Structures are given as structure tokens and as C-alpha cells.
């Protein structure tokens, strides 16, 4: 089976600084893949490149819908990438603070709807139907993620953990088959992290999405991931299943530093 995401030799330069150096990465259908590395290793840059926020210096990126043909992602705007079926969350939460929880999810539905300006003004039956559907669909999404009790709250008034989950709900509303999570457990306590762990597994089984995540919480990474990629200074230093990564000397070196006498 073809990988849903296939990244070849991705390189990103900021002036003289090489933030990503010939990175290869694949995500296969139904997989949960983790991308780890020390702070500043280039993980978020990698996300920004594949989602079209940055234009990479070199390399190819392909997205393949299950039972579909590979589509090249290079040069696409972020909204086109999302339309193609890859949605993301952000490391520092980027919700629409002054919109309600439901409206945040409705924004996620935006690219699957068609009402334009004339439709908005004259409200033909098709637009009315679409509007009813988007409210019902968004509410159903909140039910799945367990946020219905906040439905009419402003996003900014939500507790931290709920904001993280709302970001996931909003991304899922775009109907992705690949979900990118940028440090979903950052700032969560042990209990919230455990709930997140269950949620991510449930997303894979119920909604048939593949997941690529950046995470610093090693316990979460090791329990969730099928495969792990490790990057340091923009280079891929290791790849493999959790067991292999745990015992990989290069990874240990990157995280703990070299012995003084070495």
C-alpha cells in the first residue's frame, strides 16, 4: 500500500541556516508516527513545510488519499493542503479566541461547503440546508471529542485541556485522512495526557485517520507510536519502532549529550 504521506529529501534553509537537511519520512495508512527531537531540532519547521506555510528549499512531498493517486504538495497554499486531506494543530494553541466553540468547529467545515456571497445574501434552499448541516455536523464532532457542554462558550474561556481538544476537533472537521498534531500534550497533567492517549487511539480506529505527531512526552510517544523518527539539528538521526529508538545510541546521545571523556 502506498504511504499517505511521502516526504523525500526535504530541505529548508533560512538564509545561511539549514533548518531541515534532506529529511525522508513516510506515514502509512492507519499508522501513528511520532517525530521527536530536542528543542530547536526543526520539528515544527517540518510541519510548516509540509502544510504549505513555508516553501521548502528542496525536496518533494506527496499526499496520497487511501485508494487514490499521489498528489504533489509542493507550492500549494496552506488552505489547499487542508482541502487535500491533511489537517494540523498548533504547538501554541491557535484557536479563534472570540468565537464560540461551535463556531470554531464550523470554521473547520468551511472548505467542505460552497455558499458564496450571493448564497449568503439570498439564502436559497441549498444554502439553508448547508447551514443546517454544518451546525449539526459540528455539534456531532463536539460530541465525539466530548466538548458539548462548552458548545456556546467563547474558545478563550475554556480550560487548557479543552482548548487542546477543541483544536483537534476543529482540525478533524476538515475531514482529513492525515492529522498532524504539534505537541498535543504540552502543558497537560498526567490525567489529561492519559485521556489524550485514549482519544488519539480512538481517532485512528473510529475515524480512520493516520496521525503524525510531534511530542516531548516520551511516555505518550512510546505508548502510542507505531514508528518514531528522531531529528536533531535538522538531520534525521534515527528511525524505527519504540523499542529500537529507546536503545539507539545516537538518540541517547542527542538527548543526554556526550560523555565528557568520549
Amino acid at each position, binding site marked *: 500500500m502506498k504511504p499517505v504521506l511521502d516526504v523525500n529529501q526535504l530541505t529548508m534553509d533560512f538564509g545561511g541556516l539549514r533548518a531541515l537537511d534532506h529529511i525522508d519520512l513516510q506515514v502509512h495508512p492507519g499508522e501513528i508516527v511520532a517525530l521527536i527531537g530536542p528543542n530547536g531540532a526543526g520539528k515544527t519547521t517540518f510541519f510548516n513545510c509540509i502544510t504549505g506555510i513555508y516553501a521548502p528549499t528542496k525536496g518533494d512531498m506527496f499526499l496520497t488519499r487511501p485508494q487514490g493517486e499521489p498528489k504533489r504538495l509542493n507550492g500549494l*497554499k496552506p*488552505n489547499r493542503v487542508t482541502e487535500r486531506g491533511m489537517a*494540523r494543530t498548533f504547538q501554541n494553541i491557535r484557536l479563534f479566541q*472570540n468565537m464560540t466553540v461551535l463556531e470554531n468547529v464550523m470554521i473547520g467545515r468551511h472548505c467542505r461547503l460552497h455558499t458564496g456571497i450571493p448564497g449568503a445574501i439570498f439564502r436559497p434552499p441549498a444554502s439553508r440546508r448547508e447551514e443546517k448541516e454544518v451546525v449539526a455536523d459540528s455539534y456531532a464532532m463536539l460530541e465525539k471529542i466530548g466538548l458539548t457542554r462548552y458548545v*456556546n462558550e467563547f474558545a478563550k474561556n475554556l480550560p487548557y485541556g479543552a482548548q487542546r481538544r477543541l483544536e483537534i476537533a476543529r*482540525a478533524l472537521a476538515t475531514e482529513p485522512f492525515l492529522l498532524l498534531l504539534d505537541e498535543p500534550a504540552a502543558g497537560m497533567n498526567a490525567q489529561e495526557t492519559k485521556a489524550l492517549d485514549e482519544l488519539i487511539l480512538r481517532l485512528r480506529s473510529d475515524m480512520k485517520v493516520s496521525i503524525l505527531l510531534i511530542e516531548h512526552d516520551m511516555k505518550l510517544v512510546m505508548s502510542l507510536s507505531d514508528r518514531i523518527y528522531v531529528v536533531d539539528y535538522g538531520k534525521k538521526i534515527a528511525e524505527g519502532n519504540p523499542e529500537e529508538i529507546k536503545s539507539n545510541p545516537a538518540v541517547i546521545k542527542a538527548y543526554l549529550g556526550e560523555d565528557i571523556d568520549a
Partner: protein
Amino acid sequence: MITLQEIKKSFLVSLWFMFLTFPIMVIKVNTIEQTIEWRWWWMAAVGLGAFVLSFFWRIAIARKEAGKKKAEVSGEEKIALIPRLMSNPRFYIPGLVATVALVVIFPFVFSMYQTNILITALIYVVVGLGLNIVVGLAGLLDLGYVAFYAVGAYSYALLNYHFGVTFWMALPIGALLAFLFGIMLGFPVLRLRGDYLAIVTLGFGEIIRLVLENWNAFSFGPSGIANIPKPGLFGLKLSLQQSSIFIYFVMIGLALMTIFVVRRLQDSRIGRAWIALREDEVACQAMGIDKTRTKLSAFAMGATWAGMGGVVFAAKTTFINPTSFTIWESVIILCVVVLGGMGSILGVIIGALVLILLPEYLRAFSEYRMLVFGALLVMMMVFRPGGIVSGVRRIYKFEGLQNKVDS
């Protein structure tokens, strides 16, 4: 509430003011008799005035802070008085009936002068609602908005002068031209936001005005265009007063149409995208919203209303020249939106009425008119930074939603 410390602080303020104003308020040189008058009682007046004002200012600020704290403790935001009244049919139905009655009989009861300033206020309602789309909903600070107003006004004036186009033809044409100019301005500023956008739009507004001022062959320069016909009513001959009344009702109709359209846009897929763009541009794009199209549509839809407002303005004054379209005009329209309440339709309407009618009725204060006006604006922004009526998000109800989906 009133502590000794506050009295002390106010006392210090009054001392400071007495000292500051001493040279201009107390010393008066009589140049004829070569003597100096010492007007000590002026000093007392300044001291007392500063003390009282500062004291009340302190109390008002303290009350505001206390109110904010209380809202934080109770954990719920207090719904403002006006939206609460609006949602209660016992209040808003009689209110609506009274408003409609007043609107209908207004031009027949009050003088032509009153009708005319209300027409001006209504033009600002329409134009303000247009700018509200750009600034209030999409969060794009546009300081050159008056350019689109000028486009509307000049398109009627010039089309009428050269081709004899009537008001009713010019209204859609002016709107369309302004729409196109909105897109034209939109393209170069797509990458900009915040302060940079404000400065570029400011430049755009000035370019339009300067072109109109200097391109004599096209726009007749500073001398402007005169004898623009007022709107016709099936070829009837209208007296000056009748035609004022007619424009008044045209404007009421246009304002109602604007409210209707802006409301619908706001509650639609497009309106949500505008608000999302205001909240977070990066996240908005990552959620699949086309930033280019959304920004352009906001500029274009906003400009359309300014264009229509401009056509009516030209028809009402029957004479236009570039001095009607200075940066000051953009600032007033922006004030209407900010003072009224960004993103709130009712707020913008009230804002326009207050900002346009108040200076007229303050004429009694003659030279202090603008001082009073400015002081009111400052107080408004300190005590109600959200505007007179702040925007409210729509509440969706879900009782029995499950059953509906199942059946």
C-alpha cells in the same frame, strides 16, 4: 468608597493644575495702562474645577474596576443592558413600533433642517456598516475608506454630467465601481496587516483624493461638479422640501437593505471566515480558508456600501468637490464603527446617529463644540472600550437535536 487618600490625590491634581495654568489664567497684562492684573479668583475656579473633575473621574474608574472584578469572581460575563432588552419581546416590540412610527412621521413633523441632518446620519449608517465588514468583522484596519465613498459620488456626478445617467441607474453602477475599486485596493495589500495595512490604505485614500483634485480634465479639479440632479420620482416635479423628504425615505430603504444584507453575510459561511481571519490569520488558512479570497471579498463588500453612500451624498448635496473626501472623513467613519461597537450592527447604527447628530445639536456650545465632542469620545473609550453596543456571538440551541437527526 470615598477615602481620605482619594481626596488627597484629587487635591494634589488641583494644585498641579493651578500651578500649570497660573501664567495664562491668573496673570493678565493690561497693555494700555501698562499694569498687571492678578486674577486670583480664576485660580480658585481652576483649582475647584480640577478637584471636582478628578474626584469624579477617580470614583468612576474605581466603580468600573470593581464591576470587572465582580464579573471575574462570579465567572460569568454580564450581558449588557441593550442586548438583554433586545432579546426580550416585551421591550423590543413596543420599541420597534415606536421607532418605525418615529421614522415614518419624522420628516413631516420636524423641519427640513432636521430631516437633512438625519439624511446625513443615515448615509453614515450605510457607510459605517460597510466599514464594519472590513474593520469590525475581518479586522482589516482601513484608513482610506473614504476613497470608495468618493468613487460612488464621482461616478454619479460624472456619468450624469457626460451621459445624463439618472440617480437610479447610478446607484448600482456606483456600487459596482466601488466594488471593483475594493478589489483593486485589496490586491496590493493582501500581504499586509495591522499598522502597515492602515498606512497603505491611508495612502490609497489620499491618491484618489489627489487625482480628483489635480486631474482637471477628468474631475474638474478643486472646483468640483455642480448641479447634480436629486433623485427623481417617476418624472414628478418635486419642490426642495419634497425632494428632501424623498431622499430621506430612499435613505431609510437603503439603510434597511444594508442592515439586512450585512446581517445575512455575518451569519453565513463568508461572515464566519471574515471573523476567523480577524482572530488568527495563520490558523484560518490552516483550516482551509482561502485568505486571498476572504480578504478581497471583505474589501469589496465593504467598498460597495461606501459607493452607494457616495451616490446618495452627491444627489443630496447636488455639488461635490474633493474637499468632501479628505482623511478626516475616513476617521469619522472609523469612529462610527469603533465608538458604536466593532462587529455590532445596532452599535454602528447608534454610533452613526450619535457621531453625526451630536455635533449638530452641540452647536449651542459654539466654539466649545469640538471640545465637548472630544471629551465624550475619550470618556466613551475609557469606560466602554467595546463601544456602545458590543458585538454578540450567536447562540445555537441544541435541545432535541439528536431526535431531529434521527427522524
